[in-house]
C-alpha cells in the first residue's frame, strides 16, 4: 500500500482536504476522493482536455497535475461554473445551440471556454478555435461548440 500525503485545497470555493499517495493525479483525486466526476478522463496524457480544471485561475489538464501540487491552491471545476440554480451563460448556450452530443467532452470545453472568456470576452472565431484546440470532441465537428461560445461571449458582454 502506498503512503498518503495530506493535501489542503479549495475546490470551487469550498475548503477540501484529502489524503492521497504522492503519485496520484489531481484528476484522480478530484474524481475518486472529492467526488467531482464532472472531471473526465479521456486520455490521461494531457491530449484531450476532458479533465480541464483551473488551478489558481490557470487552465490545466488535471491528469498532468499531481494532487500534492494543488496543496494550498484554488481548484475550479465544471461543478463550480453555475451560480446556484443559475447556469453560466456558457452552460445555457451549450444547451441552446446543441453544442453537445454525447457530452463527455463538455465539462472540459466549458472550463476551457470560461478561461478564454475571462481573459477575452470578445474573441474572434479563430481565437476561439485556437483556445479550444486542446479539447477534443469526436461528436460535433466543433461547429455548434464555437457558435455556443460566440453566443455566450455576446451575453457576457451585454451583462457587463
Amino acid at each position, binding site marked *: *500500500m*502506498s503512503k498518503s500525503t495530506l493535501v489542503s485545497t479549495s475546490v470551487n470555493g469550498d475548503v477540501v482536504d484529502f489524503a492521497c*499517495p504522492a*503519485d496520484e493525479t489531481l484528476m*484522480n483525486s478530484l*474524481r475518486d476522493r472529492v467526488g*467531482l*466526476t*464532472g*472531471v*473526465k*478522463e*479521456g*486520455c*490521461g*496524457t494531457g*491530449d*484531450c482536455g*476532458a479533465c480541464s480544471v483551473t488551478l489558481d485561475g490557470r487552465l490545466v489538464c488535471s491528469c498532468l497535475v499531481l494532487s500534492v501540487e494543488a496543496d494550498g491552491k484554488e481548484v475550479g*471545476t*465544471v*461543478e463550480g*461554473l*453555475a451560480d446556484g440554480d443559475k*447556469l453560466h451563460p*456558457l*452552460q445555457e448556450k*451549450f*444547451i441552446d*445551440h*446543441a453544442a*453537445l*452530443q*454525447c*457530452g*463527455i*467532452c*463538455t*465539462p472540459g470545453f*466549458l472550463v476551457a471556454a470560461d478561461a478564454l472568456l475571462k481573459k477575452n470576452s470578445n474573441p474572434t472565431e*479563430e481565437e*476561439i*478555435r*485556437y483556445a*479550444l*484546440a*486542446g*479539447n*477534443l*470532441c*469526436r*461528436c*460535433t*465537428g*466543433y*461547429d*455548434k*461548440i*464555437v*457558435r455556443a461560445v460566440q453566443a455566450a461571449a455576446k451575453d457576457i458582454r451585454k451583462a457587463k
Partner: protein
Amino acid sequence: MAHSNKYVEKEFEVVGTRFRRPDGIDKVTGRARYGADASAPGALVGRVLRSPHPHAEILKIDVKKAEKLDGVKAIVTCDDLPDQTNGDAGLAAILENCMARGRALYDGHAVAAVAAVDEQTARKALSLIVVKYKKLPHVTDVDEAMDPKAVVIHKNVFTRGVEPKPTKSSNVAARTQMGHGDIEEGFAEADFIVEKSYKTEQTHQGYIEPHACLASVSPDGTGELWVTTQGHFVFRNVCASLLGMDVAKLKVTSSEIGGGFGGKTHVWAEPIALALSRKANRPVKLVMSREEVFRASGPTSSTSIDVKLGAKKNGEITAGQVELRYQGGAFPGTWAMLGCMTAFACYDIKNQQSVGYDVIVNRPKVAAYRAPSAPMAAFAVESTLELLADEIGMSGIDLRLKNVAREGAKAPYGPIYGPIGIEAALKAVKDHPHMKAKLKKNQGRGIACGFWFNIGGQTCTDINIGVDGTVNLTLGTVDVGGSRASMSMIAAEELGIPYEQVKANIADTGSLGHNDMTEGSRGTFSSGMATIFAAREAIGVLKQRAAAMWGIPFEDVAWEKGQAVAIGKTHNNLPPLSLQEIAAKSGRTGGPIAGHNEVVADGAGMGFAAHICDVEVDKETGRSSIARYTVVQDAGKAIHPDYVEGQFQGGATQGIGWALNEEYIYGDDGRLQNAGFLDYRIPVCSDLPFIDTKILEIPNPNHPYGVRGVGETSIVPPLAAVGNAIANATGVRMTHAPMSPPRVLKALDAAS
C-alpha cells in the same frame, strides 16, 4: 394491436422544431454519470495485462507472486472464462478476443487481469505476473496476409464463399461477390475505361470516453453491470452467455455514453470485469486506459481496393468492377461484404460486380465504425469517378447525375430502390452557392457521394401516464446523441401534449423488453416507430377511459390535441376531457394508463449524401487544410434538426480526420506505435471551418413520420471529397488515405 408503419403526410406541431435536450443540464454541470462515474461500496479496481507481442504462444502464466501481494483480491486468466459457447463461432471469437486462450493474436491482446483494492496495487500486481511467450511470425498488412506464403493465423479457417471448399487454411476468412448484369459486355460497350488501386489505413472510432464498467456478481449467480455501451440488452445476452449466467439474472444498466460510433457495440473488458467480480465476490470497476482503447478495442479495417469503371462518350457508365480487401483484425469478420454492398450503391450501373475478401491479420478485432466499410469503398469509387469524368471531358457532378440511382434502380445487393435522395442531394450540391464560390491560390474543390443502408430491428418501448398527466417514456435504445429529446418530441406529437410534459428514461435490462443496439442509424427510426405505436396504444386506453367517464360508446370518442372529444351530434354538450383530467381519475376507471409496443422495425430508409469540400494545400509541407465544407443529406424527416445537423457535421469531421491524418502505424515488430491522441491525431477545433449542412426530407415510406436513419452516411463521402479536392488543388491524385503531409509531399515530389 397491429400498427401501420406506412408514411402518412401530416402537419407537425412538435417534430421538426428545436427543443432543449432533457439531459442538457446534467451534462453541462458535470452531473451526468458516464461509465467510469459509478462507484459501489467495497469496489475493487480491475486492470488488464496485455500481450506486447503481435503473435505468440502463451506457454505459461505465473500469477503466484501477484496473488501474494497485499490488496490483490482476484486474478483471472482464460481458465476463469471456460468456453461455454457451444459451437457458436462468433461468440467463441468474442470470448477469445476478451482474453487470449493459449495464444496472443495481436499487440494488446488481454492475457490476464487483476482486481485489487486500489489502482496502485492493481498496477503492481500486473507487473508481478510472469507470462512466458514463444514468439510466432506475424502479419499486419492486408495484402501481405493474403499472400500464400504468409503465416496462417488460424489453422481452422478455410475461405468461406469459395466452391469447392478450399483444402488449405488461409487468412482469407471469406470471399463475397455481388452485382448484376455482365461486366465483360459492359466494358466492351465502353468508350473509356479507367482503372485504379487504392489503400486506406486503419482508423479508430476515437470516442473520448474509454470503455468503462462496474461489475458486481454474487455467488448465487445474479449480477449487475453498469457500463458505457451502445446496447445494454445485447451486452447482457453476450456477457451472460460467456459467463454461463442466466440472462434474466444479469441486470445491465447503460450509463451515459461518451461516444461510441460503433466501437461500443462490442464487449471488450466487460466479461473480464464480471469474472473478476465473481471470483472476488466484490464489485469491480474496470476502466480502460486510452492506450488500451487504441491497442485492444475498436478499430475499423485497413483496406486495399481496385476499381475499374467503363463509360460511353455521353457519360453513361456501362460497367463497374471493384475488388475490396478488408482486414478484420485477428478474427474472421464480414467487413468486405459491407464494402461490396455500398461501393456502387449511389449509381444505376447496369453491369456491375463487387468482390470482397475478409482477411485475418495480427491486429485488434475490427469493430463497426459508423457506416462500417463504406468510407473506404467510396474513397476508391468516388475518386475513380473523377478520373473517368476527366477522361470523358465532363464535370464530376454531371457524370454522377447522368448515372445516379433513382427509384426503381437495383441496389448492388439486390433490392429495388424505393424513393431515395441521392439525385436530390446531387442537384442541391450543383445549385449550392458553395459550388460557385471562388477558390483562392492553392485551393481545390472536390465532391463525393455516400450511401448507407441503415437498419431497423428489435425495439420495445413503454409509455406510462402519471396521475398528473405527465408522461414517462421508457426507452431501451441507448441515447448516444440526443435521442431522448427526439423521442420525447415524437411522444408529445402523438399524444398532442407539450414537449415538457414528457420525461424520457433509458431503462435497464430488468425494466423493459429487449432492444437491439443503437447502431446502423436505427435509433430514431426504430425507437421512434415504437414510441409512436406505444403512444397510439396509450391513446386507445385514454379514449376508453373518457368513454367510461362520459358513459358513451368508445367509437364516439376521438383524440384531438391532447384531449378526448366526444363526436357525433348526440354528445354535443360534452366538454373535452384533457389528458390530465383522465389521468387524475385513472384509479377509478381501470387503473394505470399505459401504452406498450414491441416491434421488429422493418423498412429502414436508405441514407444518401453528397458533400462539397474545399482544401488548401501547402505545397512546401504537404499539409492540407479544409477551407470550406458542405454536407447535403436526406434525413427522411428531421425530428430534431439540431441533432441531425450534428450528425452530419460530426460524421463529416470524422471522415476529414481519416482523410487527412488518422491512421494506425505498426512497426515491423507488429506493435502499434501511436496508441494515444498525441500521435493518433483526430481533428481539433482549429483544424476546421464551420461545417455547413443542408437537410433534405424525402420521406421513408416505411415510417409513420418518414424517418430515415441519419447517423452514419455522413462519414462516407469525406475521404473521396478531400482526395478530389486535393487533386484539383495540386493536379496530383492521392490513392492512399490518410492523405497526410508526408504522403502528399511525396506525391507532389514524384509528380514534379
